[in-house]
Protein backbone atom coordinates (compact mmCIF):
# COMPACT_ATOMS: atom_id res chain seq x y z
CA UNK A 1 0.00 0.00 0.00
CA UNK A 2 1.33 3.42 -0.85
CA UNK A 3 -0.23 6.81 -0.18
CA UNK A 4 1.13 9.58 -2.35
CA UNK A 5 0.37 13.16 -3.26
CA UNK A 6 1.73 14.82 -6.38
CA UNK A 7 2.12 18.49 -7.20
CA UNK A 8 -0.45 19.51 -4.58
CA UNK A 9 -1.58 23.09 -4.35
CA UNK A 10 -3.94 24.38 -1.67
CA UNK A 11 -5.80 27.65 -1.76
CA UNK A 12 -7.91 28.78 1.18
CA UNK A 13 -9.85 31.99 1.33
CA UNK A 14 -8.14 33.28 -1.83
CA UNK A 15 -4.68 32.76 -0.29
CA UNK A 16 -2.26 30.11 -1.51
CA UNK A 17 -1.25 28.01 1.48
CA UNK A 18 1.25 25.78 -0.32
CA UNK A 19 2.01 24.64 -3.83
CA UNK A 20 3.99 22.01 -5.74
CA UNK A 21 3.99 19.70 -2.73
CA UNK A 22 4.89 16.04 -3.18
CA UNK A 23 4.89 13.29 -0.60
CA UNK A 24 4.77 9.55 -0.49
CA UNK A 25 4.33 7.09 2.37
CA UNK A 26 4.36 3.31 2.18
CA UNK A 27 2.81 0.61 4.34
CA UNK A 28 4.31 0.53 7.80
CA UNK A 29 5.77 4.00 7.50
CA UNK A 30 5.03 7.18 9.34
CA UNK A 31 5.46 10.72 8.10
CA UNK A 32 5.60 13.77 10.35
CA UNK A 33 4.62 17.08 8.86
CA UNK A 34 6.69 19.85 10.42
CA UNK A 35 6.60 23.59 10.00
CA UNK A 36 5.69 26.89 11.63
CA UNK A 37 2.13 27.95 12.37
CA UNK A 38 0.21 28.81 9.24
CA UNK A 39 2.45 26.74 7.00
CA UNK A 40 -0.49 24.52 6.02
CA UNK A 41 0.03 21.38 8.12
CA UNK A 42 -3.66 21.10 9.01
CA UNK A 43 -4.66 22.00 5.46
CA UNK A 44 -2.55 19.17 4.08
CA UNK A 45 -4.16 16.66 6.44
CA UNK A 46 -7.65 17.88 5.60
CA UNK A 47 -6.75 17.71 1.90
CA UNK A 48 -5.79 14.05 2.25
CA UNK A 49 -8.89 13.41 4.34
CA UNK A 50 -11.04 14.74 1.52
CA UNK A 51 -12.36 17.60 3.64
CA UNK A 52 -10.68 20.17 1.34
CA UNK A 53 -10.41 20.03 -2.42
CA UNK A 54 -6.90 20.56 -3.86
CA UNK A 55 -6.60 23.42 -6.31
CA UNK A 56 -4.10 21.34 -8.25
CA UNK A 57 -2.59 17.88 -8.11
CA UNK A 58 -3.93 14.54 -6.91
CA UNK A 59 -3.78 12.15 -3.98
CA UNK A 60 -3.84 8.41 -4.49
CA UNK A 61 -3.77 5.30 -2.33
CA UNK A 62 -2.29 2.45 -4.35
CA UNK A 63 -3.00 -1.03 -3.09
CA UNK A 64 -6.02 -0.06 -0.99
CA UNK A 65 -9.56 -1.12 -1.67
CA UNK A 66 -10.24 0.03 -5.19
CA UNK A 67 -13.87 1.02 -4.83
CA UNK A 68 -13.29 3.24 -1.80
CA UNK A 69 -11.94 6.78 -1.87
CA UNK A 70 -8.88 7.78 0.15
CA UNK A 71 -11.02 9.55 2.73
CA UNK A 72 -13.14 6.44 3.26
CA UNK A 73 -9.99 4.51 4.15
CA UNK A 74 -8.58 7.15 6.47
CA UNK A 75 -9.08 8.15 10.09
CA UNK A 76 -8.85 11.84 10.87
CA UNK A 77 -7.99 12.94 14.41
CA UNK A 78 -8.43 16.71 14.44
CA UNK A 79 -8.38 19.47 17.04
CA UNK A 80 -12.09 19.01 17.62
CA UNK A 81 -12.81 15.66 19.15
CA UNK A 82 -16.29 14.87 17.76
CA UNK A 83 -17.66 13.85 21.16
CA UNK A 84 -21.16 14.57 22.43
CA UNK A 85 -21.15 15.60 26.10
CA UNK A 86 -24.65 14.23 26.68
CA UNK A 87 -23.67 10.69 25.68
CA UNK A 88 -21.64 8.32 27.80
CA UNK A 89 -18.09 7.28 26.88
CA UNK A 90 -19.26 3.93 25.55
CA UNK A 91 -22.18 5.44 23.63
CA UNK A 92 -19.88 7.94 21.94
CA UNK A 93 -17.44 5.26 20.84
CA UNK A 94 -20.09 2.72 19.79
CA UNK A 95 -21.79 5.32 17.67
CA UNK A 96 -18.66 6.13 15.68
CA UNK A 97 -17.81 2.47 15.35
CA UNK A 98 -21.27 1.67 13.96
CA UNK A 99 -21.43 4.74 11.79
CA UNK A 100 -17.96 4.76 10.23
CA UNK A 101 -18.41 1.19 9.06
CA UNK A 102 -15.80 -1.34 8.04
CA UNK A 103 -14.04 -3.96 10.11
CA UNK A 104 -15.25 -3.39 13.68
CA UNK A 105 -13.59 -4.09 17.00
CA UNK A 106 -15.15 -4.56 20.39
CA UNK A 107 -15.78 -1.10 21.86
CA UNK A 108 -14.91 -2.10 25.44
CA UNK A 109 -11.55 -3.53 24.41
CA UNK A 110 -10.75 -0.32 22.55
CA UNK A 111 -11.56 1.66 25.69
CA UNK A 112 -9.30 -0.68 27.68
CA UNK A 113 -6.51 0.02 25.20
CA UNK A 114 -6.65 3.74 26.07
CA UNK A 115 -7.21 3.09 29.79
CA UNK A 116 -10.78 4.38 29.85
CA UNK A 117 -12.43 1.04 30.56
CA UNK A 118 -13.52 2.01 34.07
CA UNK A 119 -15.39 5.03 32.76
CA UNK A 120 -17.65 3.42 30.15
CA UNK A 121 -20.89 4.76 31.59
CA UNK A 122 -19.59 8.22 32.49
CA UNK A 123 -21.06 11.10 30.47
CA UNK A 124 -18.40 12.52 28.15
CA UNK A 125 -19.12 15.94 29.68
CA UNK A 126 -17.18 14.91 32.81
CA UNK A 127 -13.98 14.00 30.96
CA UNK A 128 -10.86 16.14 31.07
CA UNK A 129 -9.13 17.30 27.87
CA UNK A 130 -6.65 14.42 28.05
CA UNK A 131 -9.40 11.87 28.61
CA UNK A 132 -11.36 13.26 25.69
CA UNK A 133 -8.28 12.84 23.52
CA UNK A 134 -7.91 9.24 24.69
CA UNK A 135 -11.51 8.58 23.76
CA UNK A 136 -10.87 10.04 20.29
CA UNK A 137 -7.86 7.75 19.95
CA UNK A 138 -10.06 4.79 20.88
CA UNK A 139 -12.09 5.66 17.80
CA UNK A 140 -9.02 4.94 15.62
CA UNK A 141 -8.97 1.45 17.06
CA UNK A 142 -12.70 0.78 16.95
CA UNK A 143 -12.83 0.67 13.17
CA UNK A 144 -9.81 -0.51 11.21
CA UNK A 145 -8.74 1.94 8.53
CA UNK A 146 -5.25 1.80 7.01
CA UNK A 147 -4.45 5.51 6.98
CA UNK A 148 -4.27 7.58 10.18
CA UNK A 149 -4.21 11.35 9.75
CA UNK A 150 -3.29 12.91 13.09
CA UNK A 151 -3.32 16.62 13.84
CA UNK A 152 -1.27 17.40 16.97
CA UNK A 153 -2.29 14.04 18.43
CA UNK A 154 -0.28 14.25 21.64
CA UNK A 155 -0.95 17.86 22.59
CA UNK A 156 -3.44 17.18 25.42
CA UNK A 157 -1.92 13.90 26.59
CA UNK A 158 0.13 13.43 29.76
CA UNK A 159 3.36 11.41 29.76
CA UNK A 160 1.55 8.13 30.38
CA UNK A 161 -0.95 8.87 27.64
CA UNK A 162 1.79 9.66 25.16
CA UNK A 163 3.62 6.46 25.97
CA UNK A 164 0.39 4.54 25.48
CA UNK A 165 -0.29 6.27 22.19
CA UNK A 166 3.21 5.52 20.88
CA UNK A 167 2.51 1.85 21.54
CA UNK A 168 -0.74 2.00 19.60
CA UNK A 169 0.93 3.76 16.67
CA UNK A 170 3.67 1.11 16.56
CA UNK A 171 1.00 -1.59 16.46
CA UNK A 172 -0.76 0.17 13.64
CA UNK A 173 2.45 0.45 11.60
CA UNK A 174 3.28 -3.15 12.43
CA UNK A 175 0.03 -4.20 10.79
CA UNK A 176 0.99 -2.33 7.64
CA UNK A 177 -0.78 0.92 8.42
CA UNK A 178 0.20 4.40 7.33
CA UNK A 179 0.49 7.40 9.67
CA UNK A 180 0.74 11.05 8.70
CA UNK A 181 0.97 13.36 11.69
CA UNK A 182 1.23 17.11 11.90
CA UNK A 183 3.10 17.94 15.06
CA UNK A 184 5.37 20.35 16.88
CA UNK A 185 6.54 17.75 19.37
CA UNK A 186 8.58 14.65 18.60
CA UNK A 187 6.14 11.85 17.93
CA UNK A 188 8.17 9.11 19.64
CA UNK A 189 8.33 6.79 16.64
CA UNK A 190 10.72 6.63 13.75
CA UNK A 191 9.22 8.66 10.97
CA UNK A 192 10.06 10.48 7.79
CA UNK A 193 9.86 14.26 7.78
CA UNK A 194 8.02 16.61 5.52
CA UNK A 195 8.96 20.25 6.12
CA UNK A 196 6.37 22.84 5.19
CA UNK A 197 8.03 26.07 4.20
CA UNK A 198 5.17 28.34 5.06
CA UNK A 199 3.69 30.98 2.79
CA UNK A 200 6.12 32.38 0.28
Amino acid at each position, binding site marked *: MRLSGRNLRCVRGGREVFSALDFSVSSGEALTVLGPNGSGKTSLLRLIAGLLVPADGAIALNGGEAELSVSEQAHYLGHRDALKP*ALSVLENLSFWRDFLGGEMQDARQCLAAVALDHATDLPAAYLSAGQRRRLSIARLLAVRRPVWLLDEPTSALDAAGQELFVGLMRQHLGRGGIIIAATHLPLGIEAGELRMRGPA
Partner: protein
Amino acid sequence: MSALAALIRRDIRIALRVGGGALIGVLFFLTVTVLMPFAVGPDLALLSRLGPAILWLGALLASLLTLDRLFTADHDDGSLDLVVMSRTPLELACAAKALAHWLAAGLPLIIATPALGLLLNLDGTATLAVALTLLAGTPALTFTGMIGAALAVTLHRGGLLLAVLVLPLSIPVLIFGVAASQAAISGPLSFGTPFSILCALSLVSFVLGPFAAAASLRHGLD
Protein backbone atom coordinates in the same frame (compact mmCIF):
# COMPACT_ATOMS: atom_id res chain seq x y z
CA MET B 1 -28.08 0.48 6.98
CA SER B 2 -26.91 -0.03 10.54
CA ALA B 3 -24.79 3.10 10.16
CA LEU B 4 -27.92 5.17 9.49
CA ALA B 5 -29.77 3.49 12.35
CA ALA B 6 -26.87 4.37 14.64
CA LEU B 7 -27.01 8.00 13.51
CA ILE B 8 -30.77 8.23 14.06
CA ARG B 9 -30.47 6.58 17.47
CA ARG B 10 -27.71 8.95 18.53
CA ASP B 11 -29.51 12.09 17.41
CA ILE B 12 -32.75 11.13 19.14
CA ARG B 13 -30.84 10.27 22.31
CA ILE B 14 -29.08 13.63 22.35
CA ALA B 15 -32.33 15.49 21.69
CA LEU B 16 -34.11 13.81 24.59
CA ARG B 17 -31.27 13.93 27.13
CA VAL B 18 -30.57 16.82 29.48
CA GLY B 19 -29.48 19.75 27.36
CA GLY B 20 -31.34 18.50 24.29
CA GLY B 21 -33.98 20.75 22.81
CA ALA B 22 -36.65 18.41 21.46
CA LEU B 23 -39.36 19.16 24.03
CA ILE B 24 -38.75 22.90 24.02
CA GLY B 25 -40.28 22.96 20.54
CA VAL B 26 -43.54 21.61 21.93
CA LEU B 27 -43.50 24.19 24.70
CA PHE B 28 -42.97 26.93 22.12
CA PHE B 29 -45.86 25.57 20.04
CA LEU B 30 -48.06 25.60 23.16
CA THR B 31 -47.09 29.15 24.08
CA VAL B 32 -47.58 30.61 20.61
CA THR B 33 -51.01 29.00 20.36
CA VAL B 34 -52.05 30.27 23.78
CA LEU B 35 -50.91 33.79 22.88
CA MET B 36 -53.15 33.99 19.81
CA PRO B 37 -56.49 34.42 21.62
CA PHE B 38 -55.04 37.35 23.56
CA ALA B 39 -54.45 39.11 20.26
CA VAL B 40 -57.58 37.92 18.50
CA GLY B 41 -60.00 37.94 21.42
CA PRO B 42 -61.68 35.05 23.20
CA ASP B 43 -64.56 34.74 20.73
CA LEU B 44 -64.93 30.97 20.40
CA ALA B 45 -66.57 31.06 16.99
CA LEU B 46 -63.76 33.19 15.61
CA LEU B 47 -61.13 31.00 17.26
CA SER B 48 -62.54 27.82 15.81
CA ARG B 49 -62.49 29.43 12.36
CA LEU B 50 -58.88 30.54 12.79
CA GLY B 51 -57.86 27.38 14.66
CA PRO B 52 -56.22 25.42 11.82
CA ALA B 53 -54.28 28.47 10.68
CA ILE B 54 -53.06 29.20 14.23
CA LEU B 55 -51.99 25.59 14.78
CA TRP B 56 -50.21 25.44 11.43
CA LEU B 57 -48.34 28.68 12.02
CA GLY B 58 -47.37 27.54 15.51
CA ALA B 59 -46.11 24.19 14.22
CA LEU B 60 -44.22 25.89 11.39
CA LEU B 61 -42.40 28.27 13.72
CA ALA B 62 -41.76 25.56 16.31
CA SER B 63 -40.22 23.14 13.82
CA LEU B 64 -38.10 25.92 12.33
CA LEU B 65 -36.89 27.06 15.73
CA THR B 66 -35.44 23.67 16.64
CA LEU B 67 -33.79 23.14 13.23
CA ASP B 68 -31.20 25.80 13.92
CA ARG B 69 -28.59 23.50 15.45
CA LEU B 70 -29.21 20.47 13.21
CA PHE B 71 -25.80 20.72 11.50
CA THR B 72 -24.01 23.54 13.35
CA ALA B 73 -23.74 21.46 16.54
CA ASP B 74 -22.04 18.67 14.59
CA HIS B 75 -19.86 21.16 12.77
CA ASP B 76 -18.70 22.87 15.95
CA ASP B 77 -17.48 19.69 17.63
CA GLY B 78 -15.93 18.18 14.51
CA SER B 79 -18.48 15.38 14.08
CA LEU B 80 -19.42 16.66 10.65
CA ASP B 81 -15.89 16.01 9.33
CA LEU B 82 -16.18 12.38 10.30
CA VAL B 83 -19.70 12.09 8.88
CA VAL B 84 -18.34 13.31 5.55
CA MET B 85 -15.48 10.77 5.73
CA SER B 86 -17.71 7.80 6.52
CA ARG B 87 -18.64 5.16 3.97
CA THR B 88 -22.29 6.25 4.12
CA PRO B 89 -23.28 8.68 1.36
CA LEU B 90 -23.67 12.17 2.80
CA GLU B 91 -27.13 12.48 1.27
CA LEU B 92 -28.35 9.47 3.23
CA ALA B 93 -26.72 10.75 6.40
CA CYS B 94 -28.52 14.08 5.95
CA ALA B 95 -31.82 12.30 5.41
CA ALA B 96 -31.23 10.24 8.56
CA LYS B 97 -30.48 13.36 10.59
CA ALA B 98 -33.64 15.03 9.33
CA LEU B 99 -35.68 11.94 10.11
CA ALA B 100 -34.27 11.78 13.63
CA HIS B 101 -35.03 15.46 14.11
CA TRP B 102 -38.59 14.97 12.93
CA LEU B 103 -39.09 11.99 15.24
CA ALA B 104 -37.76 13.88 18.26
CA ALA B 105 -39.14 17.35 17.58
CA GLY B 106 -41.87 17.07 14.92
CA LEU B 107 -43.87 14.12 16.19
CA PRO B 108 -44.43 15.63 19.69
CA LEU B 109 -46.02 18.65 18.00
CA ILE B 110 -48.63 16.40 16.39
CA ILE B 111 -49.24 14.61 19.68
CA ALA B 112 -49.82 18.00 21.36
CA THR B 113 -52.30 19.11 18.68
CA PRO B 114 -55.49 17.61 20.21
CA ALA B 115 -54.97 19.45 23.51
CA LEU B 116 -54.46 22.73 21.67
CA GLY B 117 -57.46 22.01 19.44
CA LEU B 118 -59.53 21.91 22.63
CA LEU B 119 -58.30 25.38 23.61
CA LEU B 120 -59.22 26.76 20.19
CA ASN B 121 -62.69 25.22 20.30
CA LEU B 122 -62.07 22.81 17.41
CA ASP B 123 -64.35 19.79 17.34
CA GLY B 124 -63.16 16.20 16.88
CA THR B 125 -63.18 16.19 13.08
CA ALA B 126 -61.37 19.49 12.81
CA THR B 127 -58.70 18.43 15.31
CA LEU B 128 -58.23 15.14 13.49
CA ALA B 129 -57.94 16.98 10.16
CA VAL B 130 -55.32 19.37 11.50
CA ALA B 131 -53.36 16.54 13.13
CA LEU B 132 -53.46 14.54 9.89
CA THR B 133 -52.31 17.45 7.74
CA LEU B 134 -49.53 18.19 10.24
CA LEU B 135 -48.48 14.54 10.11
CA ALA B 136 -48.24 14.76 6.32
CA GLY B 137 -46.79 18.26 6.20
CA THR B 138 -44.26 18.64 9.04
CA PRO B 139 -41.80 16.19 7.40
CA ALA B 140 -41.74 18.56 4.44
CA LEU B 141 -41.00 21.46 6.81
CA THR B 142 -38.12 19.53 8.39
CA PHE B 143 -36.64 18.38 5.08
CA THR B 144 -36.77 21.81 3.43
CA GLY B 145 -35.64 23.47 6.64
CA MET B 146 -32.65 21.16 6.61
CA ILE B 147 -31.38 22.97 3.50
CA GLY B 148 -31.33 26.20 5.46
CA ALA B 149 -29.64 24.48 8.39
CA ALA B 150 -26.90 23.23 6.05
CA LEU B 151 -26.47 26.71 4.58
CA ALA B 152 -26.14 28.07 8.11
CA VAL B 153 -23.02 25.90 8.50
CA THR B 154 -21.55 27.28 5.28
CA LEU B 155 -22.26 30.84 6.26
CA HIS B 156 -21.25 30.44 9.92
CA ARG B 157 -24.53 32.02 10.88
CA GLY B 158 -27.75 30.60 12.15
CA GLY B 159 -30.81 31.88 13.95
CA LEU B 160 -32.66 34.63 12.17
CA LEU B 161 -30.91 34.18 8.86
CA LEU B 162 -32.07 30.58 8.82
CA ALA B 163 -35.66 31.72 9.39
CA VAL B 164 -35.45 34.27 6.58
CA LEU B 165 -34.02 31.67 4.20
CA VAL B 166 -36.42 28.88 5.00
CA LEU B 167 -39.76 30.57 5.67
CA PRO B 168 -40.39 31.46 2.01
CA LEU B 169 -39.61 27.87 1.03
CA SER B 170 -42.30 26.60 3.37
CA ILE B 171 -45.11 28.71 1.91
CA PRO B 172 -46.49 25.92 -0.33
CA VAL B 173 -46.66 23.51 2.58
CA LEU B 174 -48.50 26.11 4.66
CA ILE B 175 -50.98 26.84 1.87
CA PHE B 176 -51.95 23.25 1.23
CA GLY B 177 -51.79 22.22 4.88
CA VAL B 178 -54.25 24.89 5.98
CA ALA B 179 -56.36 24.42 2.83
CA ALA B 180 -56.72 20.71 3.49
CA SER B 181 -57.73 21.19 7.12
CA GLN B 182 -60.19 23.95 6.19
CA ALA B 183 -61.64 21.71 3.50
CA ALA B 184 -62.23 18.96 6.03
CA ILE B 185 -63.96 21.38 8.40
CA SER B 186 -66.12 23.58 6.24
CA GLY B 187 -65.67 22.67 2.59
CA PRO B 188 -66.38 23.57 -0.18
CA LEU B 189 -63.28 21.85 -1.59
CA SER B 190 -62.84 18.15 -1.01
CA PHE B 191 -60.22 17.17 1.54
CA GLY B 192 -58.46 14.83 -0.86
CA THR B 193 -57.13 17.32 -3.41
CA PRO B 194 -55.10 19.66 -1.21
CA PHE B 195 -54.10 16.75 1.04
CA SER B 196 -52.62 14.76 -1.82
CA ILE B 197 -50.73 17.85 -3.00
CA LEU B 198 -49.42 18.20 0.55
CA CYS B 199 -48.24 14.60 0.51
CA ALA B 200 -46.61 15.19 -2.87
CA LEU B 201 -44.78 18.22 -1.48
CA SER B 202 -43.47 16.05 1.35
CA LEU B 203 -42.28 13.39 -1.09
CA VAL B 204 -40.50 15.99 -3.23
CA SER B 205 -38.80 17.43 -0.16
CA PHE B 206 -37.55 13.93 0.82
CA VAL B 207 -35.57 13.88 -2.43
CA LEU B 208 -34.65 17.52 -2.77
CA GLY B 209 -33.75 18.26 0.86
CA PRO B 210 -30.98 15.69 1.42
CA PHE B 211 -29.32 16.41 -1.94
CA ALA B 212 -29.35 20.16 -1.50
CA ALA B 213 -28.18 19.91 2.11
CA ALA B 214 -25.37 17.48 1.24
CA ALA B 215 -24.20 19.66 -1.64
CA SER B 216 -24.23 22.70 0.60
CA LEU B 217 -22.28 20.87 3.33
CA ARG B 218 -19.64 19.59 0.89
CA HIS B 219 -18.97 23.09 -0.34
CA GLY B 220 -19.12 24.57 3.10
CA LEU B 221 -16.37 22.49 4.69
CA ASP B 222 -13.13 24.18 5.42
